[in-house]
């Protein structure tokens, strides 16, 4: 599937970007789930020209508007993105492949930490947040992947190519049907539970779960929720700063040609008005970029 602009994130920044880009008559898709937006559960009373209303209502209105101008809202998460020459290749959690000429990063701020005893202590000593980076260190070893979404399922499948035993630990298994089928076709052991402690000596040796089990492990891969900002950014050659934000210029362009960013991911304040304003700028900039590339 080919698009001009792929927007990563279906919150207010992403949807506004999609709306503005689509109105400029470029082909736009949006990857992400509106229900995961921080705005979904908010009540908004400080937005220009609007009486207090629910964030859900505002998201629904803007999603419909973006679709009305031709944007395609895919309601699924991104698995990975690759740079292919001057363009981008994206894989979704239903394993669709999308090509785009420009990308707008509007994923919000991820909360990827587990906040469990041992997580910090063993980071780099058996605890990892990146299966693609670190799978090679776990050949013929035993690992666990934590997380209930498609990123965790995808990580478990990758690790099974290296490790001799993989546990996928989650409170609930909510990956895409395509990934669930793939997992169930392997010997990955799905454990419905949650960790209470990661333990070991100089390195990880195990993980105690809230169902009473204690798994003997060499590695723990933490893949919570959708793709993290740092992983996403580095796949398009961008380093987030020390606070995890992506730097942009006044056109919401990043240092990578064709990549734009907007919303909470560019920094404070984490406010709806700022997200929407940047979404507008990013959408227009991405549309201009694509049209210039056409000439």
């Amino acid at each position, binding site marked *: 599937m080919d698009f001009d602009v792929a927007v990563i994130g279906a919150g207010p920044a992403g949807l506004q970007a999609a709306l503005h880009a689509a109105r400029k008559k470029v082909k736009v898709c949006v990857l992400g789930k509106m229900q995961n937006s921080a705005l979904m559960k908010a009540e908004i009373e400080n937005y220009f020209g609007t009486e207090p209303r629910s964030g859900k209502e505002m998201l629904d209105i803007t999603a419909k508007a973006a679709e009305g101008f031709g944007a395609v809202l895919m309601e699924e998460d991104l698995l990975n993105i690759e740079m292919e020459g001057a363009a981008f290749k994206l894989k979704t959690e239903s394993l669709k492949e999308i090509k785009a000429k420009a990308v707008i990063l509007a994923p919000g701020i991820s909360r990827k930490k587990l906040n469990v005893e041992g997580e910090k202590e063993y980071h780099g000593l058996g605890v990892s947040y990146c299966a693609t*980076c670190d799978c090679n260190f776990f050949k013929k070893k035993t690992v666990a992947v934590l997380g209930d979404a498609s990123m965790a399922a995808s990580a478990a499948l990758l690790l099974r190519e290296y490790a001799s035993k993989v546990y996928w630990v989650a409170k609930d298994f909510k990956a895409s049907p395509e990934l669930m089928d793939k997992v169930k076709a392997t010997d990955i052991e799905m454990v419905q539970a949650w960790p209470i402690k990661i333990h070991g000596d100089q390195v990880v040796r195990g993980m105690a779960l809230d169902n009473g089990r204690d798994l003997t492990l060499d*590695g723990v891969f933490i893949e919570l929720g959708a793709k993290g900002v740092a992983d996403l950014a580095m796949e398009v050659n961008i380093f987030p700063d020390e606070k995890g934000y992506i730097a942009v210029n006044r056109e919401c362009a990043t240092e990578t040609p064709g990549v734009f960013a907007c919303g909470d991911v560019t920094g404070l304040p984490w406010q709806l008005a700022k997200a929407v304003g940047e979404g507008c700028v990013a959408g227009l900039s991405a549309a201009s970029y694509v049209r210039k590339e056409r000439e």
Partner: protein
Amino acid sequence: MSGVTEVKDSTFEEFIKSAPLVVIDCWAPWCGPCRMLAPIIEQLSEEFQGKIKFGKMNTDENENTPMKFNITAIPTMLVFKNGAQLDRIVGAGNKDFMRQKFSKYL
């Protein structure tokens, strides 16, 4: 000429003792963040010249040292003071982030 010396298992012990403060960048060719970090480390090695000595070790080609130091995530920077391990930095960041990290050892 590169300010970052390639270090192997066979030259590791000598290298970490060759200066009061030494940082070894453990990397691998297939690691995207490692490749992004490499030019940053080159630039910072010039900034910190005379204060920190930088080396890099390919963890695909050298198994003993990564195993000895329990490297299971890359990039990882091992920090040595007077030949003894002082700290490790796991993960990558932009130039400012890495500069801040290295500066605290001075």
